[in-house]
């Protein structure tokens, strides 16, 4: 059965190869730092379970130090615009077909692992989506090699060592360097959430919220709960972390128990109010910071980058709609 361990091993090999290419990249003055960063990430994926808790903590400290010192930027180029235009013409819609292999096999693999008995023996159903994603990537690379035969005409200016099978990793390395240290920000924030949870930060925020607000009308209670969900989600970067805290502090005792709101309506719309907060915070790194890096926006390092500023004009009216919807629907 293919499980998460295999997927991690493949991820480790990918990051190790990235480290190798980064270390040899003479266009980056800080190539050693970059190589060490990706190397540590490879170590985490390959041997994280054997490092122990403190060992993993020190590994994180190393990653943070390298990111803070700065990992430089690679200026190594890929194919030229002319080559790419020629490729687009030569391969046509086959490029779309191969790009869609990844989401399609993620979907198919997840369904097969969860719905069929033979699929569950092939792919670990508990981790079906991640394992299927990795399998989809491998499948897309293999199909591209066999169907397009891209390595046949050696592109001018290619390094002579660029054998066809290494192209995916070389290009993957180029893209992951455009993401840079932000690549591990979502994982770091998830870990911070665990530390916050263990030290009871959520309960304290909930207490502050319920002690200092006078909630004597339905609308005020609903508004406090929805706005609280959005604000606390902005702080934690995750509506899942905010939901138990805010619902225990305001949602259940005030909106449901005192005013008699329907639990299903209150919870469903409360969670979606948290999602409005997710749209407005740099703490939700995988949704807001990572795309700014992937799309190479110039303000990607700003606290409120272009993606967040584009989302706020939808998030705020939607939060207001949620308050009104809960007020209308919960007390019928």
């Amino acid at each position, binding site marked *: 059965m293919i499980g998460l361990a295999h997927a*991690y091993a493949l*991820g480790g090999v990918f990051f190790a190869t990235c480290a190798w290419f980064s270390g040899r990249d003479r266009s980056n003055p800080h190539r050693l730092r970059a190589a060490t960063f990706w190397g540590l990430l490879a170590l985490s994926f390959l041997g*994280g379970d054997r*490092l122990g*808790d403190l060992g*993993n903590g*020190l590994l994180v400290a190393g990653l943070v130090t390298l*990111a803070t010192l700065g990992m430089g930027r690679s200026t190594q180029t890929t*194919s030229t615009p002319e080559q*790419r*235009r*020629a490729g687009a013409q030569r*391969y046509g819609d086959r*490029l779309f077909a*191969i*790009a869609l292999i990844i989401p399609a096999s*993620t*979907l198919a693999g997840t369904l097969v692992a969860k719905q069929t008995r033979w699929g569950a023996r092939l792919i670990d159903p508990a*981790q079906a989506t*991640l394992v299927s*994603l990795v399998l989809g990537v491998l499948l*897309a*690379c293999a199909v591209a090699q066999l169907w*397009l035969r891209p390595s046949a005409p050696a592109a001018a200016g290619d390094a002579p060592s660029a054998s066809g099978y290494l192209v*995916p990793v070389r290009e*993957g390395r*180029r*893209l992951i360097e455009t993401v840079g240290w932000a690549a591990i920000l*979502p994982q770091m924030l*998830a*870990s*911070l959430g*665990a*530390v916050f949870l263990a*030290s009871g*930060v959520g309960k*304290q925020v909930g207490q502050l919220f319920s002690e200092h607000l006078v909630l004597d009308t339905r609308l005020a209670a609903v508004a406090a709960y929805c706005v609280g969900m959005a604000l606390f989600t902005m702080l934690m970067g995750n*509506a899942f972390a905010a939901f138990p805290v805010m*619902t225990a502090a305001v949602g259940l005792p005030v909106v449901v128990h005192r005013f008699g709101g329907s*639990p*299903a309506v209150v*919870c*469903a719309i409360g*969670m979606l109010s948290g*999602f409005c907060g*997710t749209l407005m915070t*740099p*703490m939700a*790194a995988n949704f*807001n910071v990572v*795309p*700014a890096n*992937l*799309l190479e926006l*110039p303000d990607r390092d700003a606290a409120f980058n272009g*993606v967040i500023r*584009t*989302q706020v004009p939808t998030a705020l009216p*939607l939060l207001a*709609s949620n308050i009104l919807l809960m007020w209308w629907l919960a007390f019928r």
Partner: protein
Amino acid sequence: MSLLGMVVLVVGFLLRANPLLIVLAAALVTGMAAAWAPGTGVGTLVHAATSTLASFGRAYNANRYVSLVWVALAAIGMLERLGLQERARTWIASVRVATVGRLLAVYFVLRQLTAAVGLTSLGGQAQMVRPLIAPMADGAAEAQAGLLPDRVRNMVRAHCAAVDNIAVFFGEDIFVAIASILLIKGFMEQTGIVVQPFDLSRWAIPTALAALAIHGLRLARLDRTLRRMLERAEGSS
């Protein structure tokens, strides 16, 4: 006292320090603040810091699956090298009626509908937006206006990322077996209230429609905004 970590987070972001550094510092401060009391010795604080580092490390190791998605960049990068983005651009330019606003509106509806039936993996920033949606939006804008000024191009790209996020956030909760619905059900059961997943997903529909209306309205006006930005850019050059 344990709210001190929260303060580190907010101040750090305002000072624009490296976010990874802020996150680790916030974790360490939270752990140390929890151990602190008047008259606490240095040794106790150091011990608190190392044990916080260890529990952070444990959580980091357990959350590796979050970073696994980057493996997809290998396939995306290879396809980009072969001309995927250029193909997306020329394809959209051949669709006469395509504008940035219409393209993003179609993607929004498709993404929301597929998420509503549980197909959240049919999309995503690395898998769909960077290789396909962003170059298509670029191509649609260029087909109408020629080469774009950077300011306009960046705004279009930010809109591509936003559409993917908003559509999936306010579509996925209509599906009964999504993580957030299961979290709500589990939490409510602990407090002694049984809610049916179907009821939760039913009450996600009004907000989903509101998101469609609000963002749809913005996308309907996007083409006009772009035209105005382009006219102003021409006028000033």
